[in-house]
């Protein structure tokens, strides 16, 4: 069994916008013998929007609290996130504090207010890195019992899973690990031109029209290239691209109805999990094809 410190992030909590994501991750972890130990009393990473009010040091201190907790409570375990924004914030904190010792000193002065200290040993990683680097493609494929053959899927990597850190040294312009995962479960990854386009991110709330133009481009391109479904590793991408399709239909007369699921949901179904295990009941746009395979 492989054990990791787990940083779930706000949206993956029960009853929150990515509730279903976490359920499918549970299935994947069970099948691949991964144990995720939730970091006790973890806090919000601040996400990318924290800069506005939070500024630099308070934001970094917020991130360092989680790193410090990991070091203290789950020593020696890599700190795994499933949310790209969380992962990015954690990595950015590590990187910045490493590069600028003055900031590291100041952050520890702040953490001391709550009796904490960040040493610089915690190692933030993304769940996909755990799957590819620690488990490996062979072992990841081994539990597949149901092929998702016949489903054409647009792998939508989006931004923060991909930039600025990226994964496994893959290209920023055309990363292929998500396509490989799609193909691994027997589905077909269709090539299309919006794989790493921004969905508008947090600005989907504050600048809805501008963000919805991005979302429209993404969904439209997926349709144009024959996809029946979009798959993504990102909670915000999933929510934005799925949930706003109805808005876009209403405002612009399109007829979008493209399911948007997580890669772990594909894996759950392929591993033999039920539709509920895979969190497919959490779809705003039903992933009917996936559900029918899950029910077989």
């Amino acid at each position, binding site marked *: 069994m492989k054990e990791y410190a787990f940083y779930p992030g706000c*949206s993956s*909590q029960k009853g929150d916008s990515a509730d279903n994501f976490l359920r499918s991750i549970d299935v994947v972890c069970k099948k691949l013998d991964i144990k995720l130990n939730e970091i006790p009393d973890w806090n919000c990473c601040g996400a990318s929007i924290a800069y506005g009010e939070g500024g630099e040091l308070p934001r970094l201190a917020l991130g360092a609290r989680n790193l410090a907790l990991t070091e203290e409570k789950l020593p020696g375990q890599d700190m795994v996130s499933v949310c790209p924004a969380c992962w990015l914030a954690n990595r950015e904190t590590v990187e910045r504090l490493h590069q600028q010792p003055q900031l590291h000193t100041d952050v520890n002065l702040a953490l001391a*207010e709550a009796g904490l200290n960040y040493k610089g040993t915690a190692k933030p990683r993304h769940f996909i890195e755990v799957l590819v680097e620690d488990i490996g493609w062979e072992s990841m494929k081994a539990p597949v019992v149901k092929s998702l053959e016949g489903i054409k899927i647009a792998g939508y990597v989006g*931004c923060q899973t991909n930039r600025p850190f990226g994964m496994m040294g893959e290209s920023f312009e055309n990363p292929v690990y998500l396509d490989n995962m799609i193909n691994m479960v027997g589905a077909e990854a269709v090539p299309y031109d919006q794989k790493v386009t921004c969905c508008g991110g947090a600005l989907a*709330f504050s600048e809805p029209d501008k963000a919805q133009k991005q979302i429209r481009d993404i969904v439209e391109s997926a349709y144009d290239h024959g996809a029946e479904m979009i798959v993504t590793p990102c909670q915000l991408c999933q929510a934005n691209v799925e949930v*706003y399709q109805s808005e876009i239909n209403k405002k612009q007369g399109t007829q979008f109805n493209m399911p948007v699921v997580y890669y772990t949901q594909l894996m759950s179904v392929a591993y033999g999990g039920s539709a509920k295990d895979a969190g497919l009941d959490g779809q705003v746009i039903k992933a009917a094809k996936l559900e029918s395979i899950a029910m077989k």
Partner: protein
Amino acid sequence: MTTNTTAAYQNSFLREVEAHVEEGAWVKMCMQCGVCAGSCPFGPHWEHSPQKIFMMIRAGKREEVLRSDSMWMCTSCYNCLVRCPRKLPITHIMHGLAHYAHRLGLAPKGQPTRESARLFWNNCIKHGRINELKFTLALYFKDGLAQGIKNALAMQGIGLAMLKAKRLNPFAIFGGHQCKDKSGIQKIVAKARELEAKRQEQAA
């Protein structure tokens, strides 16, 4: 327009940015290639590209820069950052400029992303974790009750769909997920703010 001021193209505002803005020391390293401008998903929507903002800083246009709403158009997609041939952390500089302008009170009033960033942070510090329902409602009602109801009604279809998918918990209004050591978090943040102010004073 002629900027016939003696401050034009002097280093004064550049030095201010270097002292006060996150990653501001990188501004002088821009070589004005424009790759950032061509890489931004919100390119059609801002008035000044990052490239232009950096040149304006070097040209000493303090007011125009800090009052610009361009930095607030950043979706944090990091496309500019990974593509910059000079390896400037453009995304962070834009965030830093936005924050600095916000702190000085020069950022555009009522700028929606500025508002949403403020609400998000406050929500996050208060509970230790984001309460999605409260954040969403706060966002709808930021412009007053009447506008809030209108916003909420406009989005009710989405809200109901999320509710149905069990991805929006109506009971979160009564508390929802939160950290145990909320006061510790607030103390950490307060101390960090204090230190940051002190360091910037030293740098300036």
